[in-house]
């Protein structure tokens, strides 16, 4: 009888199901995984080292590029860490705007996740559905910040500017008839808040559509039920957070347990799983989208009736308003110093963790009193999750690796940093 060896299989780094640039070395016994060794770092840009060489505000844009599907949440943790060290309080309207955009970001993230996860295990339509709604939300991003993905909208002390009173509209072109343009512009006549409110009224119906496609789908259940089971004890040992931890039945959500901004005034539920498998995590993320939708609606209602400042008027930290800068010498100096040297943050250290769509996203910042961070450490939830891939796929089939990568909601921007 010939001697049989385990096969070593290389997976990625260029593979559509690797969700970016993941290289996996798989030791296989037939089609069963004996050991999985993820090789990461192919997207390593040394964001933390770059931040050490730049004034604080110039690194906000780098935060978008970490987890590039939940941009504003990354920014949020970063600006909150700076605010904590400076000891400044953010205007209430800015806090509501931040919460609203955090939840919009959560929906954006989960939509991409469900689309990609669906594709990985063989469901095509869900991807098209999810991207249809992402389009609306990216238009919201664009209306408020000018960029569809990398918004750089949050600032230490608030947000860059108030919500616009109008939405950009589609124009008639050679390829888009007037009739189409009118149809597309149907919900864009009012302000940004009108557009978001219209979205929140439509969105629960969309989630129902996704659920019709997947929740009772025989193939979907065969591919996810009982795959990548993690017990609550192991989940804590492995440093899981967010939906990965809640999927294992641990009720833990920073928005509720350690509320930041105005989350303590919001009414929402936290879904928790029971079996700790991929299907439970799927159900949790679906429910989280509905809950995010509820939070967005509450923020819209509050923002409608409460106008006010959205950025702190403290010119040592935030730039003066442009019309003031043009006519006032002191403001001109403040403006100049703000955009050249930046501001110094008092000596010390701070850790801020927020409930990111993927788990706990943390910023640990050390300052020696300079205008640049001395050390910035980004705690990416996906990093801890991917490190557990080996344990989660052991004994599963090759095709299940793809399902586990999908359920972990892996994005390489944040893992490699």
């Amino acid at each position, binding site marked *: 009888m010939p001697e049989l060896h385990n096969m070593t299989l290389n997976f990625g780094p260029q593979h559509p199901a690797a969700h970016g640039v993941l290289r996996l070395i798989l030791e296989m016994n037939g089609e069963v995984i004996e050991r999985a060794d993820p090789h*990461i*770092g192919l997207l*390593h840009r*040394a964001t*933390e*080292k*770059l931040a050490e*060489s*730049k*004034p604080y505000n*110039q690194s906000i844009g780098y935060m978008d590029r970490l987890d590039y599907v939940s941009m504003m949440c990354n920014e949020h943790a970063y600006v909150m860490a700076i605010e*904590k*060290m400076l*000891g400044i309080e953010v205007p209430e309207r800015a806090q509501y705007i931040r919460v609203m955009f955090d939840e919009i970001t959560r929906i954006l993230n989960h939509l991409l996740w469900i689309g990609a996860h669906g594709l990985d295990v063989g469901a095509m339509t869900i991807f098209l559905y999810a991207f249809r709604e992402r389009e609306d939300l990216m238009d919201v991003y664009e209306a408020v910040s000018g960029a569809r993905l990398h918004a750089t909208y949050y600032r230490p002390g608030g947000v860059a500017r108030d919500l616009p009173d109008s939405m950009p509209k589609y124009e008639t072109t050679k390829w888009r008839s007037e009739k189409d343009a009118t149809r597309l512009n149907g919900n864009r006549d009012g302000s940004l808040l009108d557009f978001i409110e219209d979205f929140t009224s439509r969105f629960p119906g969309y989630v129902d559509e996704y659920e019709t496609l997947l929740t009772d789908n025989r193939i979907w259940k065969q591919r996810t039920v009982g795959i990548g089971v993690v017990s609550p004890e192991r989940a*804590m*040992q*492995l*440093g*899981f*957070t967010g939906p990965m931890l809640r999927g294992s039945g*641990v009720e*833990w959500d920073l928005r509720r*347990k*350690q509320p930041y901004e105005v989350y303590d005034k919001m009414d929402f539920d936290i879904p928790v799983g029971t079996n700790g498998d991929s299907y439970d995590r799927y159900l949790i993320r679906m429910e989280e989208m509905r809950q995010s939708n509820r939070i967005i609606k509450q923020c819209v209602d509050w923002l409608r009736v409460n106008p006010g400042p959205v950025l702190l008027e403290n010119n*040592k930290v935030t730039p003066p308003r442009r019309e003031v800068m043009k006519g006032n010498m002191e403001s001109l100096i403040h403006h100049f110093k703000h955009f*050249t*040297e*930046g501001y*110094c943050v*008092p*000596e*010390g*250290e*701070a*850790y801020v*963790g927020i409930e990111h769509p993927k788990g*706990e996203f*943390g910023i*640990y910042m*050390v300052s*020696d*009193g*300079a*205008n*640049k961070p*001395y*050390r910035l*450490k980004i*705690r990416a939830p996906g*990093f*801890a999750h*991917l*490190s*557990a891939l080996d344990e989660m796929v052991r004994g599963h089939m090759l095709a299940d690796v793809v399902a586990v990568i999908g359920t972990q909601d892996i994005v390489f921007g944040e893992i*490699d*940093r």
Partner: protein
Amino acid sequence: MADSQTLAAKLREYFSDIPVDCTVNLKEVTLEVSPDKVLDVCRALRDEDDFAFEILIDLCGVDYATYGMTEWETDISTDTGFSRGVNAVEAKTLTNKMDTEKPRYAVVYHLLSLANNQRLRVRSYPENSDFPVIDSVHDVWNGVNWFEREAFDLYGIIFDGHPDLRRILSDYGFIGHPFRKDYPLTGHVEMRYDEEKGRVIYQPVSIEPRVLVPRVIRHDNRYDDGQSGEESSNA
């Protein structure tokens, strides 16, 4: 979230027999432990009911070599005026400062307790700055595996007892520890495709490191007041 002063008091009481330093700043508790006690302390922090830190959120290295050093001196001006602040803090001047008695590297752990809803930062300074070694806490929290690999890769801190201490983020065959303060931002080598050789080659970097915005520390009395007030309330 649980009160940080209460936690600090409990920590001081429990660890009264070993030298630990427990401080509270910005409502965050920091516990400084000597490197040979890290493993015992971590195990107690996980298992004791008062602490119950089930999750290790983060582990990272910090290099304190240029702490407090600036590229632009603003307190004194000479007869030639202020410096222009265009030269980066030199690695050579660094090495002179490095052989002071204070350890250069620190390992920082961030812990989270779900049961008690509290956070804790543990910091430890490996003694030898040329060859920093510290015990791995892999047996206490399995999830620390990659975090320790990262600290090893970026700072060259050795974790004794780690099951698989390899580089993680840097390239295959990479030399050096890129997040050390004496490692230039531009790196040492760049890569390009060589037409003649018909393959990708590495060569020394052709760009000069430069400072766009100088690092400057302004002694701002607004924060002095706030800090001293906070410290007195912590005491």
